């Protein structure tokens, strides 16, 4: 599941556009530039060194990205695509650029270090600059996050009732209470059905992030026949791929070579073919050790990317999972009673996520119930995604890994880590701005920003505005406790 992160395409352009502002910030630059071109050249060299020095400081944790070879057009195709992008961008610029600056918070980039008191500038829903001092464009909306923590918006790898099923972009209720509650939980991106989308409260623009996330397979121990049939299908598709390869070779020698028969190749077979070519990722539910081993074996035998959903007993077979290269979606608070009759470790443990993570299995964390609900599972629904990750910390997982499991690692599992999951230049401007560390039980989301728009504001939304207003941890509980007026406060 390692991926090259192609997010720089937009970013590098943006940075080039914005770089001059840094020149003028340098106290010497303006002076030298006014002199002559020659001196200006020296100045540039000087600036370069200044920049590199600054890069080692805490405010510029993203220099590593800048040093990467800029993805300037390598082929004609790429350049034409880039041109198209530029054209589109120009069009957008004409429409009016939308800036939002998040100023002064403690920024947890997740993929980089933690920066204190930096400013994140976003433009049209993308992060364009992260620095201690940023020249704000005219008309930029500002959000004073000083004293708060800025995290990338949380990513829920499964959800119910937030985005509409088949076509989220077409029929999602973007003013629903569920969406507001999920945003209040710091979640900005969710997978729903087989697509991933943003919780764009009050807007339907750029809602869908990705379609066709997984190919869901069933490999149930209770029906050996089904398992057998699936293996047979895999076998057939693998055979076809081999025939196709040999046909390609043959064709070079003999132009009349016969193409392998592919009439049968449709529906399920086509999906399996995509799977074996690693164009999509499979997702199979497996909880017991034997089930997990069975699906790992399947994945290694036929060679496809696999995500194991559940993985309650993953801790007992973590080395095998790591060797098979599978990922897991786990719920640390899930309980399965151990069976004493089995002569092996079994059942659930709070250490599950930690053990799997220690063995190198990429994990994403999701609560046992993936909707916003209170049906007998209070505190174990999607509203408490951060709490679920905190329980993994209770089981020994590091804070850092727990945060990753609900941000960048979750995004990587969904194949959308080039857009969400961390705070980096070029990525989507999705933030959960909280009044404390996100894994702490007292922490509330102060603002949720989605696509560079403030989608949730604790002080304006009446869901939690009465609880510790303005992040005052010592504030007494409200005395007008009940009945209180929920809903819009206008």
């Amino acid at each position, binding site marked *: 599941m390692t991926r090259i992160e192609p997010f720089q395409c937009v970013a590098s352009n943006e940075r080039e556009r914005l770089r001059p502002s840094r020149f003028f910030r340098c106290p010497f630059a303006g002076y030298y530039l006014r002199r002559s071109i020659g001196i200006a050249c020296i100045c540039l060299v000087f600036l370069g060194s200044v920049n590199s020095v600054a890069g080692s400081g805490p405010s510029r944790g993203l220099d590593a990205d800048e040093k990467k070879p800029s993805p300037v057009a390598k082929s004609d195709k790429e350049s034409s695509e880039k041109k198209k992008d530029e054209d589109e961008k120009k069009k957008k610029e004409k429409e009016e650029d939308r800036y939002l600056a998040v100023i002064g918070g403690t920024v947890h980039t997740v993929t980089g270090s933690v920066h204190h008191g930096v400013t994140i500038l976003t433009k049209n829903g993308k992060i364009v600059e992260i620095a201690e001092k940023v020249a704000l464009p005219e008309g930029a909306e500002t959000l004073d996050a000083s004293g708060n923590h800025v995290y990338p918006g949380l990513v829920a790898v499964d959800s119910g009732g937030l985005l*509409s099923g088949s*076509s989220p972009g*077409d*029929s*999602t*209720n*973007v*003013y*629903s*209470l569920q969406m507001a509650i999920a945003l209040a939980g710091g979640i900005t991106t969710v997978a729903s059905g087989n697509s991933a989308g943003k919780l764009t409260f*009050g*807007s*339907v*623009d750029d809602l869908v992030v990705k379609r066709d996330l997984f190919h869901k397979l069933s490999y149930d121990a209770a029906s050996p026949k089904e398992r057998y049939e699936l293996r047979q299908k895999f076998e057939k598709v693998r055979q076809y791929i081999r025939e196709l390869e040999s046909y390609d070779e043959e064709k070079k020698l003999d132009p009349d070579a016969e193409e392998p028969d592919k009439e049968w190749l449709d529906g399920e077979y086509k999906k399996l073919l995509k799977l074996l070519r690693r164009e999509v990722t499979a997702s199979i539910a497996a909880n017991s050790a034997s089930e997990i081993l069975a699906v790992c074996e399947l994945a290694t035998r036929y060679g496809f990317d696999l995500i194991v959903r559940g993985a309650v007993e993953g801790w007992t077979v973590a080395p095998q999972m790591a060797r098979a290269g599978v990922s897991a979606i786990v719920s640390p608070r899930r309980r399965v009673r151990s069976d004493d009759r089995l002569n092996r470790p079994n059942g659930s443990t709070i250490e599950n996520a930690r053990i799997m993570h220690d063995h190198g299995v990429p994990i994403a964390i999701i609560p046992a119930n993936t909707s916003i609900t209170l049906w007998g599972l209070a505190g174990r629904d999607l509203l408490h995604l951060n709490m679920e990750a905190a329980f993994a910390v209770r089981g020994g997982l590091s804070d850092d890994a727990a945060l990753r499991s609900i941000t960048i690692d979750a995004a990587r599992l969904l194949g959308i880590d080039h857009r969400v999951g961390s705070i980096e230049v070029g990525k989507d401007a999705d933030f959960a701005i909280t009044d404390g560390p996100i894994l702490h039980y007292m922490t509330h989301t102060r603002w949720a920003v989605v696509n560079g728009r403030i989608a949730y504001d604790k002080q304006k939304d*009446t869901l939690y505005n009465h609880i510790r207003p303005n992040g005052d941890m010592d504030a007494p509980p409200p005395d007008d406790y009940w*009945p209180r*007026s*929920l*809903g*819009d406060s*206008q």
Partner: protein
Amino acid sequence: MSIFQKNKSRRIGLGRSVVRRIAVAICLVSLSVTGTTVLAADGEDEYVVIKAGRVITVSGEEFSPGTIVIENGKVSLVGGDLEYPASAKIIRAPKETVMPGLIHPQSRYGLSHYKRTGIHGDMNAASDVYPELIDFANLLEAGFTTVCYVPAGAGIPGVATTFRTAGTEDSRVFDEFTYLQVAPKWRGVGKKMLRDALKKAKEEIDKVEKAREEWEEKQKEKEKNTEDDAEDEVESEEDGDENDADTRRSSSKQVNPKSDDEDGEEESEPAKNGDKKSEEESDEFKPPKIEPKYQPLVDLIQKKEGARMMVSLGSAADLLHLDDVLKPYEEIQHVLKLNNRRTRTDFNYVVEKLGTRESMVVVAPTLNYLPQSTNRYNLPAALVDAGCRIVVTPNSDRRSDLIGFREQLMSLVRAGLVRDEAIKAITLNAAEAIGLGARLGSIEKDKDADLVFLDGDPLDPLAKVSRVMILGEIVWKADEK
């Protein structure tokens, strides 16, 4: 369909009515000087004069007492104390209030519950409505003089038709093509359906355009082939241009079935220069047929005069989805119908947005709650405050909702809706929403004399409709019920 009379004056613009209003004002001033001298009637014109205790004109000032002079079913004068022909039939209503008849902009009163889904732009509500089989008593008792019937169902079920609630058979149908009813299933495939329908309509337009281009090219080639000498060439080019113009007009005729009032003129034009090019006439441009069920959408995209649609929205998010669909088609004229009948709605989220657009919005007379709260929210009042023009429509076609309509409206006024806006919402705004603002909705010169007599203030819950007048004739009386 031929029984429906075509409505020509529907296209009279607002500007002219303003001019008229000024004209009326001038008349009033001049007449007030002359006093109540009774003029002699001229010829066969039929005059009816209403001497009412109070006249609510809606568009202008109130008169108490007031006089309305009606000439051949149309209001010709309104004022405090006017002169009128001696032959006029006088209706004395000293204790009554007269106001324009109420307009129901979206109704299924007395119709079956048959519903169709999908796209049916070729369907018309008129095909369901047999006025003589419907007992309009409830509507009349509630003060409605005009009712707009819509085809039932989800998607684009068809075109709405406006009827009078009483009157002669000839005058019954007011406007056959009032608006296109659009009620997508927003929580399901509605957005996709609407997007696809508009796309299809656009394709139909492109099809006609392409065919015309091809035809023009062919025509040019022909001209080149037939050119003999310089003189002929010049002439034929001129002909070609004229021909183009003709075809453009004829194609627009084809596109808009409503515009056949102009048929006569158009057909005569090709005949004028027809003798010159009898050859060419044989292959005159015939635009490919547009699929009838997309015709109203084609009219909307091409911004044909009189083409309008009313879009039903179930919740605030639906407006965003609608905007998303309509984005590629610049400013398709539409009226929004907010289904705020359920007491809890979240339209409060988009009130400001609607206000900045000064939208025409149809709402139910419901005092809503804010979502997930016990806070009352007066959606109609909030819309007015934000800058919208509102139309209030009864909650349902049940008798209780029709008779209690004014009372429900009154409850909105009590909760903050501006009184004048409430009256406008059931008369003038309703008329303008369905494109009949030039003929209905207020008591003004040249507007139809479709009036309601009440024994009190229209927003007094105890006041009852005492008489209903349609085209200058009393068609319903409370005591003759």
